[in-house]
């Protein structure tokens, strides 16, 4: 028996659809259209077919930003996952006040990415930043100007990654913790009795249990990392010399500063297409088994 008729389905979906259609679907359609034109600052359009797309993939296009985005994703998500995993193992322990500690650890998650970016920008400043001051006192750096986090091309992308890692490692930790809750303690007990070491316990029992959670978390984080804007904008605006520019940033800059709407639209279309395909592929493997069960 069908619970909801098709008509009701459409009716219920309609109000939401109006909102989403106007502000999500319409912009994408518009950009799709615009990507085939060259549009000047006063609005005159000239049809240039696939030129914008070809430009994007050649030198002078957005290949550098693509590389930066990939590096960003790998470094940020990699560290977040590894650290999240290690932290989760520590925070798993139940003791008086463990809930409080866990809540405290969770708080960076709620901070606005912009605020996180501004915070780290202040801390990583070479002249009065506390990061370099501490590193020098510990002895890792010989002077506070050894590493110019935000001004040196070599370090700027990494600096942004660090801020991102700080902001979202708690998320990975949380996901993994939640996954570990579903662990059957009898299996763990059995392993302990069998004399398995801590490491063995982790790898053979805990990891397989959290695999589905981990995969979901990974897919969400990879997409979010690809879309990062606020943090990088606050810290470096993509500089110096485009070294920390990711696809999100170059699209925005091209739209507002260089006024090349056509080209920016093409880049945006490619970007969204890649994200969507990635999501579909990733989710397909997770969604299908679920659908089969229900």
């Amino acid at each position, binding site marked *: 028996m069908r619970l909801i*008729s098709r008509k009701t389905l459409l009716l219920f979906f309609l109000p939401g659809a109006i909102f989403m259609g106007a502000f999500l679907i319409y912009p994408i359609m518009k950009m799709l259209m615009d990507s085939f034109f060259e549009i000047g600052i006063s609005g005159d359009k000239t049809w240039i077919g696939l030129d914008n797309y070809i430009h994007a993939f050649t030198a002078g296009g957005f290949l550098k930003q693509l590389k930066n985005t990939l590096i960003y994703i790998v470094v940020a998500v990699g560290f977040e996952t590894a650290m999240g995993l290690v932290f989760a193992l520590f925070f798993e322990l139940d003791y008086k006040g463990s809930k409080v500690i866990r809540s405290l650890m969770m708080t960076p998650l*709620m901070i606005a990415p912009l605020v996180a970016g501004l915070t780290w920008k202040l801390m990583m400043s070479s002249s*009065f930043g506390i990061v370099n001051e501490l590193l020098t006192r510990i002895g890792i750096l010989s002077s506070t100007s050894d590493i110019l986090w935000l001004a040196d091309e070599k370090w700027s992308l990494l600096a942004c990654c660090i801020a991102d890692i700080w902001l979202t490692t708690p998320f990975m930790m949380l996901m993994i913790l*939640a996954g570990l809750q579903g662990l059957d303690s009898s299996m763990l007990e059995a392993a302990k009795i069998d004399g398995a070491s801590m490491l063995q316990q982790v790898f053979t029992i805990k990891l397989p249990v959290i695999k*589905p959670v981990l995969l979901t978390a990974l897919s969400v984080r990879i997409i979010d990392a690809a879309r990062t804007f606020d943090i990088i904008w606050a810290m470096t605006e993509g500089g110096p010399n485009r070294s920390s520019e990711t696809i999100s940033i170059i699209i925005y800059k091209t739209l507002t500063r260089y006024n090349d709407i056509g080209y920016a639209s093409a880049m945006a279309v490619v970007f969204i297409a890649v994200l969507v395909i990635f999501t579909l592929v990733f989710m397909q493997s997770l969604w299908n088994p679920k659908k089969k069960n229900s």
Partner: protein
Amino acid sequence: MLRNGEIGKKLGIGLSVILTVLWLFPYIYVVCCSFKPGSEVIAVPPRFFPKVLSLENFSGLLERMDALKFLLNSLSVSLISTAIALILGALAAYAIQRSGAKLSVALVVLVLCLKMIPTSSIVVPIYELICNLGLYDTKIALIIVYAAINMPFVMWTMLSFYEGIPTTLDEAAFIDGASSFQTFWKVILPICKPGLSTAFIFTLLLAWNDFLVALLLTSTNAKTFTVGLAGFLSAYNLDLGPMCAGAFLFSFPVMIISLAAQKYIVQGMTAGAVKG
């Protein structure tokens, strides 16, 4: 064996406490800076704790920008857009989940894809649309845009919650003569309160923390706090003291909410990921 375990446990506890403190370090630093006199914030060499406690950064913050107005803007815009997104999203998600039509699968996929769109790519077309509607620099504009952007997230969260509710409830209501809407409003929604609470908090945060949309769509009337905060990156003077005060003010309510509503946040993040 037991002793070993005890030492290991103590070590684990100690480490997690230390880790937490270390992790909160940046935030604590900002809080400290908020209470330092302006010159101490950018003193060379930098110090962690304030030598002197001072509230001048807060007064500086209020002087430099209409902080209270922006805070209120952020608050009202977030609350209302969240309410809209919640109601319409929950409704739409309910219909999709309960209907067995093939169409609903397509809609689910659509919603998922919409969730993935990067905001920085679509802000400019949104800006033009808002301007054409004559809504530039109004709170209404922010409200409807936030509601639209965050709706897919609400739908996604509610979808997984609905899955946990057996359809027998719907059927019972149907037999009792309730219409689909009545079933939704009176029977299902009250049970979904945990899901709604989670979606509420997350969507609220998404709107509260947003920067880019507000930057382009507002000017003086509807400016939100995040945009105001970003205005401190100026070349004329290093106004970082008031900026820290602002950052502290802005994230403080968020921290409190996150501590108080921990349970819902955990639920929200793990929704759809963990079975049962």
